[in-house]
């Protein structure tokens, strides 16, 4: 190895000679004086301030913070459109309806005992049954449930719609010629016994009220 480098040095011998002949640069005469002055004055700073260099880390760090803040904002503060979530609204509506039904069933029982006209009032004004804020109660606001598949409860009870042939009813699967109407994401839940009993009680009370009203009408005639 040494030989190789010695040979290399021989190869460059002429140039090395030239380099060795270069004059030696010496420090200026006032070098030490200037140095001691700087030390005494504690002038240790650099003569020229360095330019701030463009740094990718310095640039990316704040931008990453800003981006993450925006993402977090969208995660924790959902937009107003998301509040119109059908499932959420539906469950809310159901909760309200059940709450109102509970109160109306007790009311109806009392009304049946006291006076009959109040039940007619209930019939003529169904919005009494539902809260004023409910979508179903508001006129003009269409329920998400496909209308052709629903039936009128009053007609069903009284048997008025017996002859009515509702072909669309329950026709969930169509033949594919027409685009099916979107009726929301309905979570199918099995009704529990208590709510069923409650609904039965409501229907029974309405039936009784109607029978009484009919009998009263006949008597009046």
């Amino acid at each position, binding site marked *: 190895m040494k030989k190789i480098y010695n040979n290399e040095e021989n190869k460059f011998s002429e140039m090395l000679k030239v380099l060795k002949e*270069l*004059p030696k640069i010496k420090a200026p005469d006032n070098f030490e004086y200037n140095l001691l002055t700087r030390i005494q004055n504690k002038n240790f700073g650099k003569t*020229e301030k*360095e330019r701030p260099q463009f740094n990718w880390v310095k640039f990316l760090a704040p931008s990453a913070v800003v981006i993450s803040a925006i993402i977090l904002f969208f995660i924790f503060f959902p937009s107003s459109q998301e509040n119109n979530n059908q499932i959420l609204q539906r469950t809310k509506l159901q909760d309200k309806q059940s709450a109102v039904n509970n109160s109306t069933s007790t009311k109806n029982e009392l009304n049946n005992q006291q006076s009959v006209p109040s039940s007619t009032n209930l019939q003529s004004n169904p919005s009494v049954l539902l809260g004023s804020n409910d979508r179903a109660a508001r006129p003009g606001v269409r329920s998400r449930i496909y209308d052709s598949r629903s039936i009128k409860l009053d007609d069903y009870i009284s048997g008025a719609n017996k002859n009515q042939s509702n072909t669309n009813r329950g026709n969930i699967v169509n033949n594919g010629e027409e685009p099916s109407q979107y009726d929301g994401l309905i979570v199918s839940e099995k009704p529990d016994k208590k709510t069923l009993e409650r609904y039965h009680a409501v229907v029974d009370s309405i039936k009784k009220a109607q029978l009484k009203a009919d009998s009263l009408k006949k008597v009046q005639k």
Partner: protein
Amino acid sequence: MTELSDEDLIKEYQDNNTPEAYDILVKRYKDPLMNFVYRFVGDRDICTDVVQDTMIKFYLNKDSYRSFAKFSTWIYTIAGNLAKNELKRRRRRIIFSIDNSDDERSPQIEDKMFIAPDKAADGTIRNEIIQKALLKVKTVYREVVILRDIQDLSYEEISEITGLAIGTVKSRINRGRAQLQKLLKHIYRE
């Protein structure tokens, strides 16, 4: 005190904060460092500043010197690092300067030294050409070539100064010399 070795002087300065020891070390190393930094940077004013900064670093950070290393390699390392930083800064300044004139790029020695016709023959121009050629050699090669062929340091010392393996030092010296030879062919064949 002047007879003491570098290592003894720095120890004296570290232990007893003797200003004499510091002065002697400054006197011993100011010229070799000036020569090294000048050949590396190519500007006398900048070179003076760099060597001054080196001495101030030595003054401020005397305790960072460890006795297992040679004082000369330690001080050369400081000077070399400062010189490299200076070169980087200059390069940046040239890139960002609005008027990209040639005056800024060329070493100041050209402006300061008037070459008389009679002097031109006796090697002043030649020295200048050699200096220019040195500045054209890549920084990584230039440093080791200067340390070896101008400052006469051993491969081991250069290895310590640059923090490179001896093999790397040797190969870099070789490549640097080859580059320089290409640039100086017409000079030493005359």
